[in-house]
């Protein structure tokens, strides 16, 4: 009996309808918090943080580069786990989250690579270097894009989900390589600014806006993930009666 109740809870969590209805009221809050954090962090970092002693003002790119890279990597784990949950428990919502995470992850990896390139020019003298960190990050972008492209290779939606979940799981090997690349190889890329195990190698005046930006990116990620997944739910479940009722209600209100 107890076990049974636990499972209904688990399955309700995996129900697209439950997710769609539950997340509705979160959206304005999440959007407001993300916008406030991102705008505050960006203005603070760009105009008020002190310039770096060696890199001057070009270091301000860090306020976009580091949060985007952070979320690109964390998002990969989220995507791979969502894929695994989908494979094991056959939860549809899980695959939808996986697909949304792939799109957002690809965009964030692109931001990380682009901001890295324009930071590289004034700092290293080159936009692109085939350095371990940058190359493994490029592989991450290809993994994300591969997840999106692979879906189109299948006519059957279920096989597409399974195949991309497996690709996502195999690709997780790359994530620790990216993290460790600056320690394992002699790289041009500077070592991590923030480590969980030690104090940040940054002055508090520079670090505070970075922390705000990272928090802002986390909220933004959650917001984008929910928005993409809600759109996907409507498309996938358009024949379900609850979706039809919802649309009919909206029409009636117009």
């Amino acid at each position, binding site marked *: 009996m107890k076990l049974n109740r636990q499972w209904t809870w688990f399955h309700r969590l995996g129900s697209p309808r439950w997710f769609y209805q539950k997340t509705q009221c979160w959206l304005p809050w999440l959007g407001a918090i993300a916008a406030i954090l991102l705008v505050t962090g960006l203005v603070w970092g760009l*105009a008020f943080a002190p310039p770096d002693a060696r890199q*001057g003002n*070009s270091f301000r790119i860090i306020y976009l580069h580091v949060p985007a890279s952070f979320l690109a990597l964390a998002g990969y784990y989220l995507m791979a786990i969502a894929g695994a949950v989908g494979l094991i428990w056959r939860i549809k919502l899980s695959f939808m989250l996986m697909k949304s995470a792939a799109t957002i992850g690809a*965009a964030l990896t692109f931001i990380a690579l682009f901001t890295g390139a324009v930071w590289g020019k004034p700092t290293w003298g080159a936009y692109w270097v085939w350095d371990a960190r940058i190359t493994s990050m490029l592989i991450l972008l290809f993994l994300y894009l591969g997840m999106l492209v692979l879906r189109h290779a299948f006519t059957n939606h279920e096989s597409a989900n399974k195949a991309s979940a497996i690709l996502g799981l195999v690709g997780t090997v790359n994530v620790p390589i990216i993290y460790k690349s600056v320690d394992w190889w002699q790289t041009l890329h500077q070592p991590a600014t923030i480590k969980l195990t030690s104090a940040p190698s940054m002055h508090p005046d520079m670090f505070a806006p970075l922390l705000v930006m990272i928090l802002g990116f986390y909220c933004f990620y959650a917001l984008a993930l929910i928005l993409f997944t809600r759109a996907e739910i409507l498309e996938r479940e358009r*024949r379900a009666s609850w979706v039809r009722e919802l649309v009919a209600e909206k029409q009636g209100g117009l």
Partner: protein
Amino acid sequence: MQFDNVQQLLVMDGHGVYVWSAVFVSVCVLIGLIIRPLRQHRRAIKKIARELNLKKTGKLTGNSQEASDASNT
């Protein structure tokens, strides 16, 4: 503020081009990540509404499966 005026904030001792292009591209991508699902969502609602209206007006006969497949194409 670290800069005396807007001019200095834009130039950033010669690093402005790099910093501001990074900001511009990132912000565009982030906005795109919000707009795209919103448009997808609106499109899905319109599509479902069309299907419902077709059924209601009786322009399409047959089961709902056929109706939604027809409006898919």
